[in-house]
């Protein structure tokens, strides 16, 4: 277990957002956090990122409390892609990916940083747009650039907050595949998601959240019609197609 979360509580303005969250993450595992809007998915990521300080409980990374690491040490182990990223003064793609080298190179870019950036650009097929302004790219391309930036950090864990939101079908798949490839290299991933069909197809472990609590956790088998009805308030039917599960919403129900 490289990441272990124990009895995590988080309060925001006296309102409990997270209650007694427990889960662990293994090497090379793709873990998905699912649940309705406001169920606490992003908050968990922000706590692991140490952007938010939990009120109770601990988060252990390689058997040490994350508070015992410096910010830079953490940044060399965990990379994070927030839900919204807005650049008021935009950089080009190369510079944006180069940012990922910050935790490794104090204040100045060195040769190694440029090499790593360039190889990520070719690896992800971004050569043609390498010097384009990040704000002029499509949502899908931007997301790829941001993932490249996470890879430049050379992390052990990547965390993505709803990375496929607002993306077209092709890019949704591409982003998910890209993350899956990283996990095959031994990097662990924590993702928050809404598309349950994609979740069931790619996840190794799923945590289902409801109202800031873990409602169910385990493998794909927790994605049952009963659980989804309980958590989302939606009646669904599940279909098998080419070995993948597809979740079809039928109607909303009163909870």
């Amino acid at each position, binding site marked *: 277990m490289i990441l272990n979360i124990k009895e995590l509580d988080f309060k925001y303005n006296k309102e409990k957002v997270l209650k007694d969250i427990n889960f662990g993450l293994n090497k090379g595992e793709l873990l998905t956090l699912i649940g309705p809007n406001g169920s606490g998915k992003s908050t968990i990521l*922000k706590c692991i*990122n*140490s*952007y938010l300080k939990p009120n109770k409980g601990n988060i252990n990374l390689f058997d040490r409390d994350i508070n015992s690491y*410096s*910010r*830079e*040490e*953490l*940044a*060399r182990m*965990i*990379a*994070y*892609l*927030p839900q*919204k*990223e*807005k*650049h*008021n*003064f*935009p*950089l*080009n793609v*190369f*510079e*944006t990916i180069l*940012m*990922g080298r*910050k*935790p490794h190179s104090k*204040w*100045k*870019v060195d040769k190694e940083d*440029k*090499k790593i*950036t*360039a*190889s990520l*650009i*070719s690896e992800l097929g971004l*050569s043609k747009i*390498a*010097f384009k*302004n990040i*704000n002029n790219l499509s949502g899908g391309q931007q997301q790829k650039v941001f993932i490249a930036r996470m890879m430049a*950090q050379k992390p052990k864990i990547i965390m993505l907050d709803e990375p496929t939101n607002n993306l077209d079908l092709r890019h949704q798949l591409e982003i998910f595949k890209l993350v899956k490839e990283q996990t095959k290299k031994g990097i662990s991933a924590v993702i928050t998601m809404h598309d349950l069909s994609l979740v069931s197809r790619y996840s190794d472990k799923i945590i289902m959240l409801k109202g800031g609590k873990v409602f169910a956790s385990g493998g794909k088998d927790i994605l049952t019609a009963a659980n989804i009805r309980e958590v989302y308030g939606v009646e669904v039917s599940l279909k098998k197609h080419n070995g993948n599960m597809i979740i079809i919403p039928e109607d909303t129900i009163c909870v």
Partner: protein
Amino acid sequence: MNNNLEIIADYEKKNKKVYLLTSVLAVLIIITVFYSLVSGAADIDAGELIKAALQQKDGMIYNIVWNIRLPRILTSLLAGMGLAVSGAVMQSILKNPLGSPFTLGISHAAAFGAAFAIIVLDFSGSFADRVLSEIYIPAISAFIFSQIAIFIVIFLARKKSSSPETMVLAGIALSSLFTAGTTALQFFADDLELASVVYWTFGDPGRTSWTQIFIITLSFILIFIYFIYQSWDFSILNAGDELAVSLGIDTEKIRLYGMFAASLLTAVIISFVGIIGFIGLVTPHIIRKISQSNERFHLINSALAGGLLLILADNLSRTAFAPIILPVGVLTSFLGAPLFIYLVIKGRQYW
């Protein structure tokens, strides 16, 4: 592998263009400084100038060069550089294209401080006056009040985890408060005091002494080095706090220290030179328009361009209505406001 080398080569090529801009600006500054030394109300030709510079003697030309023109030019250069780089840093760390000493209330607080010293405090002939005459009491008061403004802005911002919005809004509120204070003081002032307050508010690089230039230079160099060292952090801050934290940056600390350093530099300049508007706000935008570069070179180029602009503006203000010398602060505001509106209308993405 080959592809990678090409990408790096392209990156270096892009950077070379930025270095070119830096060199052009530096050369333009040297030319303008020299031009400003020889041009003015009294005609001096280049040969006489060099002679005067080398001779350690009194004389009219020696006096004009060493006691009038050179201090004025150096002050313009340093004030322009300092204001522009502070503006650029404030814009980056506040993620706001409106960040500048003006919008954060620092200039208005300084003006209030100077008015307070001129109208309320009367040190003439006292011990303090003799000791501090070199640094000039309104300047000290202006500095103290601008620091008070900064501390209030930073204090309020800390209450809300140093968010950029809080800083900008607190700055705007303080600006009106200090403007109201200055107006109230002026209401109770006599004609002479009123004249000195108004004179102080016009930014004028011609009023600094060598000691003051030395203080400005020292603060500029120290703070500029700090900015260059932190520039990568500043540019990451601009992509959002959550991301910056995940890249190992102590966002609150960097934002507070950065704001403090930028405000300190501005306060030192404004206290000695008076209020010079728009250089801090407009210069970084001009640089962004002509060159896309990383934050480090954005700061360097903004500083150089700010220095160049202020020397040019000062030349114009000295010569346009010669022999009357127009305060350069009036001129920069006249030129800066339309330029700023032009930049807004021309529309870059962040508007």
